[in-house]
């Protein structure tokens, strides 16, 4: 190779590794915020229903920070290179999705849609080729929510909230039906989906225990 060729390759590689560092810096900040939210949400297991709205509201300032950081990530990624760098922040993004979806469920009892979550995290449609919420990451986030809810079903009973397990059970089953509709290839998502049945079983056992003792009013039974 002549020197100009060597230099050309060096320049490309240097530019790429610089870019990687820049993205990593932003992602690190984003990751901190995502973890902060998880930390806050840990308290749902000890928070009575009455105090829940305040707890959920405490996420808002952190979410605003997240929005800003997503913007600065989008600013450094070159066009069309979303998938090239995505692995750098996939994990942090899944954590953030988890926080948003869980908070939304506790607030409205609904599953936050993919576009609603993107919106909440400040991911703009026009950045599609640079920063976007991939379906896989959204689904990973949802599975983490189900994992968490199976714990909440148990702990809400401890707090004397006997209705919560029933709501969780309905939600979790709905999600399971949704996942069953997908043709997942043999990847981590598939393996995590396979583990969902244990969470569902755990929630169902709580529902069984609660309804057996007539602690909660069951939804109108068929037959």
């Amino acid at each position, binding site marked *: 190779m002549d020197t100009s060729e060597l230099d*050309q390759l060096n320049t490309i590689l240097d530019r790429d590794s610089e870019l990687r560092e820049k993205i990593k810096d932003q992602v690190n900040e984003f990751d901190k915020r995502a973890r902060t939210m998880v930390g806050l949400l840990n308290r749902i297991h000890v928070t009575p229903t009455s105090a829940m709205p305040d707890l959920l509201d405490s996420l808002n300032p952190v979410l605003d920070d997240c929005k800003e950081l997503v913007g600065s990530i989008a600013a450094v990624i070159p066009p069309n290179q979303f*998938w090239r760098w995505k692995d750098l922040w996939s994990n942090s993004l899944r954590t953030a999705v988890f926080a948003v979806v869980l908070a939304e469920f506790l607030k409205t009892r609904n599953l936050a849609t993919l576009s609603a979550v993107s919106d909440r995290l400040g991911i703009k449609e026009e950045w599609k080729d640079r920063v976007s919420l991939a379906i896989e990451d959204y689904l990973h986030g949802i599975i983490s929510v189900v994992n968490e809810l199976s714990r909440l079903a148990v702990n809400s009973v401890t707090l004397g909230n006997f209705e919560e397990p029933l709501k969780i059970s309905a939600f979790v089953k709905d999600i399971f039906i*949704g996942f069953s509709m*997908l043709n997942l290839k043999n990847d981590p998502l598939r393996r995590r989906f396979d583990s969902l049945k244990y969470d569902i079983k755990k929630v169902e056992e709580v529902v069984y225990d609660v309804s057996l003792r007539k602690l909660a009013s069951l939804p109108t039974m068929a037959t």
Partner: protein
Amino acid sequence: MSVKPAFENFRRELDESNDRRERLIKASRDITNLSKKTIFLLHRLMLDEDSAAKQQQCTGSTSNGLDDRALALNASKQGYLRLREVQELYAGLRHELGKELFWRHERQVSPGLQEYIEALSFAHYLEHGTLISYGEVQKSLSDSDGVPYFPLTVSDYLLGLSDLTGELMRYAISGLARKGGRKRAVDVCVFVRNCKADFERYTPYIRELRKKQAVTSSSLEKIEDAVYAIFLRSSEYDIPPDMLDDIVAQSISSLSVHPDNRRDHRVQGSIRTLGFESRDMSGDEDGF
């Protein structure tokens, strides 16, 4: 509340992406296959004594260098012809790899691409005796207007070239007994040594390159040993290299014409003294 419609959408999109992924894996396998065949073809053509002899008759040339050159030009031409098939495959894939899709499926595309670069750079080496440039590889993967089908990564380029050194080792050693084979080995030795030095500075950026550098080192060592044997043994004969070539060629051809001669210790002995033991031919498998 129902999540069904949303998940129906996800299914469609995930299926679409998985299907594309499968198609690219299949295409990549075909490309690997074609490229491997091209490499074998190049090796075969460079060892083809008959066509070499014919060419020598045609040109009436007695100089080994020129003869070897004609052989190499012919081989590279045929190699390029074969590789055009690969280029057409890539042209057909351009809509599957456009825009952000290339980066999504880079991992599926890389193996075939590296094999292609290995074959292309081998043909290029035979034609020019140099390393094909990054720009030239990208150009071979572009349409007639020079628009790339997809961006070529430096990593694929370098990893493809790194595999070339293994092929060159095979090329040098298996051709040793041929006319002009010793010069060939010396040239390859210098070339591979330069490659290894050039690649070294990229190893911090590309992790796999570090592993391949180790393979390159062992290839280089094999070539160096062969070249060492050549120099050492030819110093025992105080005759011009051309004449030495003829002696070797005669021994070899008498071997292949009369299989009975294999038991002729005199002939075998003369080959052994020149360092063409079977060990050299069989010891080069780990490059595959």
